């Protein structure tokens, strides 16, 4: 299922971001490799504290500094490394070619400016148009994202909008310069189900219309299943598993992916089908050694998982897993200890 290299829009290689706080160094992102193809929707799923949002900020180069710092890695967009660009060049890409929407529409809009001001700000910045043209363009884009009577509401302040409408304003702002890549950081988490469905539908429709790639960050497997073409599962600063959505949901290879899928109520599951991952999400100041999932993993190979970081294993083109069950070291360990570690393809009953 892999696509030709010229189809690649964004490639992240070995990204590493730490936060240097009073309490200690928060190792938010240890090593991340992601590919985003043209006009595809990539889901980035993980629980709170797994480093999803930091990944997004790192791509745009707006990690709050201090305390955050990107230590290593490349962010290759259209063949150029964004991290090597000057600040001024980077600003031309931000909001223009790569746009971002945030989790909480209540706090991500500046309360003292009208939404029209805030949308046209980006247009004026990147497209060298007059104020009046920018305003007209913002009205157009606001009605495009489904804000009724946009020509009146353009002069309203954010507090006069409801949560769903504010998220639409955020989307309008992100779309205003026809970006090639949209990073949507939990765009629907703080919204109600009915509004969430509207917003997700809007994202889907606009991505088709603008031929735009989306990185959709969320913790909700349901949203991923509805929206994405490919999915990357993140845990504590690492990507555990990347692959095509159908494959991942049908036969996850990583124990964490499996646990995550088992922990959510599936459409046809019963009470007994809920499985749990024991333990809690680790503190990233002092994370577990090597594979950070090993203390919670049912397949923990003692002496291996906690000492050597598993390398990325390609199961098939486009489906990568970072787990010792599939590495050479892991196979050697299993042979040596005479224990077999295998992931049953799917939590029970889910398919039948």
């Amino acid at each position, binding site marked *: 299922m892999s696509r030709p290299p010229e189809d690649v829009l964004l490639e992240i290689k070995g990204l590493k971001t730490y936060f240097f706080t009073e309490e200690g160094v928060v190792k938010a992102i240890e090593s991340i490799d992601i590919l985003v193809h043209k006009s595809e929707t990539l889901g980035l799923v993980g*629980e*709170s504290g797994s480093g999803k949002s930091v990944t997004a900020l790192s791509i745009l180069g707006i990690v709050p500094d201090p305390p955050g710092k990107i230590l290593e890695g490349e962010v290759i967009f259209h063949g150029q490394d964004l991290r090597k660009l000057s600040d001024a060049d980077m600003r031309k890409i931000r909001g223009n070619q790569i746009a971002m929407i945030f989790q909480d529409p209540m706090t991500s809009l500046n309360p003292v400016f009208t939404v029209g001001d805030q949308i046209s700000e980006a247009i004026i910045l990147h497209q060298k148009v007059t104020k009046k043209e920018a305003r007209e363009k913002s009205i157009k884009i606001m009605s495009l994202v489904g804000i009724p009577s946009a020509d009146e509401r353009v002069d309203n302040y954010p507090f006069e909008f*409801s*949560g*769903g*409408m504010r998220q639409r304003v955020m989307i309008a702002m992100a779309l205003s310069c026809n970006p090639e890549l949209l990073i949507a950081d939990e765009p629907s988490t703080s919204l*109600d*189900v*009915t*509004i*969430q*469905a*509207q917003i*997700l*539908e809007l994202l889907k429709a606009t991505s088709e219309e603008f031929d735009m790639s989306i990185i959709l960050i969320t*913790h*909700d*497997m*349901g*949203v*991923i*299943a*509805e929206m*994405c073409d490919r999915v990357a599962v993140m845990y504590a600063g690492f990507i555990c598993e990347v692959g095509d*959505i*159908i494959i991942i*949901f049908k036969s996850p290879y990583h124990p964490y992916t499996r*646990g*995550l*899928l*088992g*922990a*959510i*109520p*599936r*459409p046809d*599951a*019963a*009470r007994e*089908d*809920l*499985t*749990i*991952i*024991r333990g*809690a*999400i680790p503190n990233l100041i002092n994370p577990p050694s090597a594979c950070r999932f090993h203390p*919670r993993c049912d397949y923990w190979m003692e002496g291996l998982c906690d000492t050597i970081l598993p390398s990325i294993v390609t199961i098939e083109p486009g489906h990568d897993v970072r787990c010792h069950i599939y590495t050479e070291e892991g196979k050697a360990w299993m042979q040596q200890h005479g224990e077999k570690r295998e992931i049953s393809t799917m939590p029970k009953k889910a398919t039948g």
Partner: protein
Amino acid sequence: MSSETFIEKIGRQQVEKGLISSRIRTKEMKEDVVLEVINLKKFFNIPIPFETTWFMLAFVAAVVVFAFNITIGLSIMGGVVVLYFLLPNIPPFNKRPKVAHLKAVDGIDLHIRRGKIVGLVGESGCGKSTAAKTIIRLLEPTAGSVYFKGIDINRLTSVEMKEIRRHLQIVFQDPYASLNPRATAHDIIIEPFAIHGVASGDEASYKVLSLLKDVGLAPHHAYRYPHEFSGGQRQRLGIARALALEPDFIVMDEPVSNLDVSVRAAIIQLILELQHKMGLTYLFIAHDLSLVKILCDETNVMYLGKIMESGTSDEIFENMMHPYTKALISAVPIADPTKRSKKIFLTGDIPTPINPPPGCKFQTRCPLVSDICRLEEPPARWYSKSHVAYCHNIEGGEESPEAYVK
């Protein structure tokens, strides 16, 4: 603890105080019904600051009258009082209403049987949490009654209520906010024993430790502070506190919606396990429909302070009738990429519940809306003994559940 039930105890207390026993309203209830909520309403008054202006105008006017040497015989207080009451009746000043009613809960009925998990679902701002708090009388209802084992708890005095509170408990949504940050786990869980004088000293500490064990925490957690626990562990503490007095009925106010996916499943397991072990009854409030579907025996769908549809979970999820329920269920994202469903999109957002228009609450977003919806409250339509939906424009059904009793 004596063997007398709290109903007897309350009765005895009343006799001791020489109160008329009819002060408490009781109701014949079937043996297996734990809680019955009848037409419960909770309105909040939002005062409009104009009232202060009246006061100030009255004050200023009275003082001015007084300062320029009164001959009409008004005293300063008299001036204030008279003007304060007069001004709202004088045309320029009586234009604005004194208060706005926020109808958080606008007449709901619930019928909760022993050992069942009853779900209450709805979007944010529909009054779920207010309903929960009003049911266990953390808020005083505006109208309606809540019968717990046949006793109308809203008629009880605070002393009698304290007795009832041992049997009605609540678990809150935010596990961090619901624990006193300056108390250890031990202090938090021993609190119910201290309040009710059930146990003290080592006996209480022993009970605390066994409660911790029951909810899956280790004894060494006892002297930690809330901030040292993870989210899931905090919620376990909250559950332990609710369990301390061995209640019959627990309101679960979105107990897992603030937790991470992997932890969420563990808490749900715990809740179910405890129900098995202790024979508890839950009112489970949630906005996550897929959770309600697998967890609850009965489901009530709420919208803007009113129940839209209720029935057993199977009836609601397989055979929903109300347009709102249909839209709500279709909007839930399904964690299966092969089953991307066609959705029913509701237009617009949830309106505010302040001074709502007459008629059906759902009229502003309903795909089936007709003229009658804007005038009259929708009638009940029964589709089985337990399945009821409130809508003008749905087909079939009977006008009362009696049709199915046979």
